[in-house]
């Protein structure tokens, strides 16, 4: 609505804030402020917006603004000058006001590097002008009252006492203390980019994403990804406490992180009581262990560790290089010990992404569960059947406990005809292997040499995701897993699923003991009660062996419990685990094909502990295809 002086109240506020208000407009403005005290709050709100715009835009737009100011981009602005677009774009936002979208700051932060360089150039230029006594616009010389200087000094001392913390520039450099004035401490140097069930302490409100230099925060629960201004991306695992020490560094006092460092952020530092880590272009993990010592591990690239000098600082003179696969434990006493790297000690990007998307995608739901499973101390071996281009011919073991020692080989040794074929698995994103007979004496198989050396106890859980064939003529099922000393027929374990066309149709079979034991001639194999298994679908087959009894599970539900079965026999350490067949077949030249599994397998897990009903159900719910 037009007013006598051509401006409505909102426009008067704008003119006042812009400094373009005329005398007559000012008088009207003051009159209205007196008459309508609510306008004061509106003026306060817009003044605050002014202040925020100054702070926010100064971080983001310098490069473009300098271009504009020099006139380079006038045409582009002129052609696009349509302030109506502002409203239309924001109107669209208003329409979806109920939806809270996460703020993707990746591009913004990527811009920062060049902007910061320009900023530094400008600061230097301004300093030169001041020194020359030529203060112009944007380079004003400030005369700081003595009392303010005192405050700055006091605040700096206070901060140093509080933080006790210099911002390191390199492992060999002497730690440096920045004199910090109060307004300079309020510097945003990192952002919380995303979170998974994250619960924070130290943030002023739940939606805060900004992290300030030298202001500690704690992640009490869940996971979060923090992106630093120079581009370093850090996944934080709760419980963890840390503080950004600058746009390219942090101090970790508790918990664990995984850092991925792009080229723009080489030199990223992580300071801990046990040492100072400096990145040289890599992905690495850092953890403060329960005893307070530092665990550092490099996944790719190279980092260096300046160990503690034992007196609260770091020994920059003798940094320790950590390359891909290296791991060390460092103590505040300066002692450093190399340890075996543990792939599952840290949540890396793939796992974090899986956890983020677990609610939306069955594959990510399974993947998030799969990463959790890998850390189970009772997990003897775990094959996820990911087709690895970089390691053809291998089936990788994902168990943190046994690692690559228990990797499998595709096919029987020296017999390429027995290599199973890769097919699509339960989810399009993962693979499976197709097993079956080659001829009357050979079957396709995966061989894990030396599995007999795993020192099995008398508790066991075996689980496998299998797809039964569509066509009836291919049915019959067969052996999924088998560990036995073929020549003497000591049987540690065998797991089979039989389908239509087999005498044991729709039954799960578990075997253990010694088939030649004259005293216990019928104690080696037990069968579940029959349970129809639909052809063509994916099923989770599992057996839990405990106290001499086998419990059979199909698709997360217990089918039946067996009569007592023989004890797990001890095999030679060199005995191989076979997936998809049984040594009984090739070694004894059997013509029956029931020993070879006819179908696809895309996950196998072997535990040396009994899993509970709930755990088996969880495995099924997390791994089943579909929502």
């Amino acid at each position, binding site marked *: 609505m037009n007013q006598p002086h051509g401006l409505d109240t909102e*426009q008067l506020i*704008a003119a006042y*804030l*812009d*400094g*373009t208000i005329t005398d007559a407009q000012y008088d009207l403005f003051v009159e209205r402020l007196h008459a309508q005290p609510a306008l*004061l*709050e509106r*003026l*306060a709100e*817009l*003044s*605050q*917006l*002014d*202040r*925020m*715009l100054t*702070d*926010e*835009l100064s971080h983001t737009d*310098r490069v*473009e*603004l300098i271009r*504009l100011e020099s*006139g380079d981009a006038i045409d582009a602005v002129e052609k696009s000058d349509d*302030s109506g*677009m*502002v*409203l239309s774009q*924001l109107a669209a*936002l*208003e329409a979806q*006001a109920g939806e*809270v*979208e996460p*703020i993707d700051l990746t591009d913004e932060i990527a811009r920062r590097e060049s902007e910061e360089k320009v900023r530094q150039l400008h600061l230097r230029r301004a300093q030169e002008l001041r020194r020359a006594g030529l203060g112009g616009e944007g380079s004003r010389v400030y005369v700081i009252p003595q009392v303010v200087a*005192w*405050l700055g000094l*006091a*605040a700096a001392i*206070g*901060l140093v*006492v*509080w933080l*006790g913390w*210099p911002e390191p520039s390199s492992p060999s450099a002497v730690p440096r203390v920045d004199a910090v004035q*109060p307004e300079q*401490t*309020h510097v945003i140097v990192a952002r919380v980019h995303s979170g998974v069930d994250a619960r924070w302490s130290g943030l002023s*409100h*739940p*939606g*805060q*994403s*900004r992290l300030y230099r030298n202001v*500690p925060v704690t992640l009490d629960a869940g996971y979060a990804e923090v992106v630093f201004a120079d581009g370093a991306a850090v996944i934080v695992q709760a419980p963890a*406490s840390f503080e950004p020490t600058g746009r390219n560094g942090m101090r970790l006092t508790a918990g664990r992180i995984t850092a991925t460092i792009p080229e723009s952020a080489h030199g990223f530092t992580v300071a801990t009581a046990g040492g100072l880590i400096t990145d040289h272009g890599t992905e690495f993990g850092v953890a403060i262990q329960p005893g307070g010592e530092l665990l550092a591990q490099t996944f790719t690239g190279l980092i260096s560790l300046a160990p503690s000098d034992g007196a*609260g*600082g770091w020994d920059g003179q003798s940094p320790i290089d950590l390359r891909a696969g290296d791991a060390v434990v460092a103590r505040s006493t300066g002692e450093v010990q190399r340890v075996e790297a543990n792939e599952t000690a840290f949540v890396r990007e793939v796992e974090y992404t899986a956890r983020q998307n677990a609610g939306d995608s069955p594959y990510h739901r399974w993947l998030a569960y799969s990463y959790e499973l890998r850390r189970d101390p009772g997990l003897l071996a775990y094959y996820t059947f990911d087709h690895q281009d970089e390691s053809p011919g291998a089936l990788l073991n994902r168990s943190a406990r046994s690692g690559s020692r228990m990797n499998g080989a595709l096919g029987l040794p020296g017999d390429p005809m027995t290599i199973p074929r890769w097919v699509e698995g339960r989810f399009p994103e993962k693979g499976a292997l197709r097993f079956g007979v080659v001829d009357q004496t050979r079957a396709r198989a995966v061989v894990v040499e030396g599995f007999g050396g795993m020192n099995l106890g008398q508790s066991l859980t075996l689980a496998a995701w299998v797809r039964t064939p569509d066509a009836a003529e291919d049915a019959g099922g067969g052996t999924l897993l088998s560990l036995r000393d073929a020549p003497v027929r000591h049987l540690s374990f065998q797991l089979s699923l039989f389908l239509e066309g087999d005498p044991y149709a729709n039954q799960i079979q578990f075997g253990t003991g010694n088939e030649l034991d004259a005293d216990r001639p019928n104690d080696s194999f037990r069968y579940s009660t029959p349970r129809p298994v639909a052809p063509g679908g994916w099923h989770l087959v599992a057996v839990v062996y405990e106290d001499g009894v086998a419990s059979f599970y199909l698709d997360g539900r217990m089918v039946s419990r067996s009569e007592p079965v023989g004890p797990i026999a001890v095999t030679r350490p060199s005995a191989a685990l076979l997936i998809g067949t049984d040594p009984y077949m090739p070694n004894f030249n059997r013509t029956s094909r029931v020993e070879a599994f006819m179908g696809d397998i895309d996950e196998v897990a072997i535990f040396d502990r009994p899993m509970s009903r709930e755990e088996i159900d969880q495995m099924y719910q997390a791994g089943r295809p579909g929502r």
Partner: protein
Amino acid sequence: MTESDPNTPLSPHADQMRRLTLLWMKAQPAVSAFIASVVRDRHRVEDLTQEVAATVASSFERYDPAHPFTPWAIGIARNKVLHELRSMKRDRHVFDEKLVMGLAAAHEAVADDYDARREALVYCLERLPGHARNVLGLRYVRELPIERIADNLGKTPGSISNMLYRSRQALAQCIRLRLRSEGWHR
């Protein structure tokens, strides 16, 4: 330099300095915004903010932690501003004492959710067309007068003023919606 153990108790003085620094970090934008809403000279605003910081530090012992810090700091700023305005009586555009008091109270009211509002501003700025953002930048970062901006962009001062006005209105509305969607009542 030794690294401090976060579990080691700080000395009373260090602890007080730590509290002061943290509190001032949060309050300073609101204090500065209040001063800027009364004092139109940007450089003078910065000087006054520094003076308020000094007074806050020297008076910190008198601060009652049972009450919010930011209103206390704005109260100190209000006295500074009133003193400043008395020396500016000859200026045409100077608020009287009653308005300054009312404006200080209004700033106290909007200061509560400053961090949330700034978060929301980031979100809203992302959605602002680039040219509007650039004009805001020329105004707030380069601190160019509207006439200079208009001259640089080949526009009339009126069109630039209008664009700034509409951009700020839209941003303020967007911030309100954003806060509401995050559960803030404002």
